[in-house]
């Protein structure tokens, strides 16, 4: 099976979507969801035959996008309300994943910059001159039989089968609602707190993202003021003037993305040397295209 893939495909579905959304930075409002969905599907169609592993995530995200688009094209439509909650969860998660993707993209760029700087210096590697050079014991001698055997064990252990999650989202236990409580508790009555302070000690980046969403939600509700001096500067958060102490949490249902997906999780195991998995190699995009058409006709 030979797969011809573009770079963007290999970089993954979040990269692709992020790229599509952010490429026209000039006027952010010029980019509509419709444009994004179309562009995304076009990219997918360019992948002629897809490796099952590569395709799944792309298709799941395409499905979410199409759902979102359908929802948008039918504003206020009653039939869709049942699915709304699920859809909101999906889009919040998608947003969280995109933010996460962007975070690591920027982190990778920072690593690349460090590496470029480091590459300007060359370390001394000449080692000692004679007679010291020949005094040094052989590296293998220092290794010892035990470490050699441990390496042999590793070398001959079959590689793990690949776990392919059918969900395009990882189990997330953080809830925006909980995070809102946490954020509110952390903002002083007077003065401001920075986002970094708010997330101090949190190592799981999805938690950080959820905290971020919580801050945004509070901002939307006019409960906090945000201040960011420059684009990459630190974000400071303070209570809004005239902030009434009563927080109406009822309206938060929409955001109650307590998205613990463990229950619904179905993992597809593909054994690397199993032949069965290969039957699904070619994934037709017709189903997706149909869905898209339906939306358009509506």
């Amino acid at each position, binding site marked *: 099976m030979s797969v011809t893939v573009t*770079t963007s495909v*290999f*970089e*993954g*579905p*979040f*990269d692709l979507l992020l790229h599509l*959304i*952010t490429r026209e930075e000039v006027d*952010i*409002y010029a980019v*509509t*969801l*419709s*444009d*994004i969905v*179309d562009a995304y599907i*076009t990219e997918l169609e360019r992948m002629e035959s897809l*490796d099952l*592993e*590569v395709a799944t*995530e792309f298709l799941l*995200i395409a499905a979410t996008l199409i759902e979102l688009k359908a929802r948008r094209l039918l504003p206020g439509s009653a039939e869709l309300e049942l699915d709304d909650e699920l859809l909101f969860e999906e*889009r919040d998660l998608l*947003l969280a994943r995109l*933010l996460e993707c*962007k*975070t690591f*993209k*920027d*982190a*990778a760029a*920072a*690593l690349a910059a*460090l590496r470029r*700087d*480091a590459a*300007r*210096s*060359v*370390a*001394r*590697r*000449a*080692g000692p*001159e004679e007679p*010291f050079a020949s005094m040094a014991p052989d590296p293998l001698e220092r290794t010892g039989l035990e470490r050699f055997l441990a390496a042999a064990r590793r070398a001959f252990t079959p590689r*793990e089968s*690949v*776990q392919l*999650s059918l969900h395009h989202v990882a189990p997330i236990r953080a809830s925006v609602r909980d995070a809102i409580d946490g954020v509110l508790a952390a903002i002083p009555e007077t003065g401001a707190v920075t*986002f970094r302070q708010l*997330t101090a000690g949190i190592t799981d980046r999805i938690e950080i993202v959820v905290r*971020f969403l919580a801050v*945004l939600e509070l901002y939307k509700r006019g409960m906090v003021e*945000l201040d*960011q001096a420059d684009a*990459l500067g630190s*974000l400071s958060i303070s209570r809004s003037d005239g902030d009434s102490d009563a927080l109406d949490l009822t309206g938060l249902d929409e955001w109650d993305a307590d998205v613990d997906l463990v229950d619904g999780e179905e993992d597809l195991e593909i054994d690397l040397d199993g032949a069965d998995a290969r039957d699904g190699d070619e994934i037709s995009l017709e189903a997706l295209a149909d869905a898209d058409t339906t939306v*358009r006709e509506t």
Partner: protein
Amino acid sequence: MEPRDTELERAIEAILMASTEPVEPSTMAQLLEVPRTRVEAACEALSADYASARRGFVLARVAGGFRYQTHPELAEFVERFVLEGQHARLSGPALESLAIVAYKQPVSRAQLAAIRGVNVESVVATLLERGYIEEVGRDPGPGNAVLYGTTRAFLEHLGLNSLADLPPLAEFVPGLEMVEMLENTLLGTLDPLEEAAAEPPSEG
């Protein structure tokens, strides 16, 4: 401030010149039979000497140890001379996966794949082969997935003394503007322009 110990400094200079990799201060302390803090002080004094004398090399602290390396200002000449060590650069996906391992370690292949949204088999193989990541343990949960972490070579490659020298991940959490852009595009409920634009189901 203590007086400088020239004999200690000379011994350190000789040892570092003979080493092929960064030497930890504790190793030198043991060999030279002095407290570790004195070794560190001596290294700093030497480093300052070289800087003020505008030597063409520096004494750098990398991956937990000290080593001689060329002064970055002279990269131009050194590059002309040394071709070795100029590893092929990492691809974008490989670099992003490396960033995830660096910040999330220990991390399994499946966790990595979940964040990247794609299979990471070949990327992990590349990073292992380059020696930037290694197995650091097994997940105690079901499946006992291999967990990966970054190596000394990774620190040396980036010129870092320790993982604590990585810029904090919080620095890279997207700014408000970016979040709004993503939100507006995906959620689109706030912007009236957007809703207006949605009304004719135009043909792409």
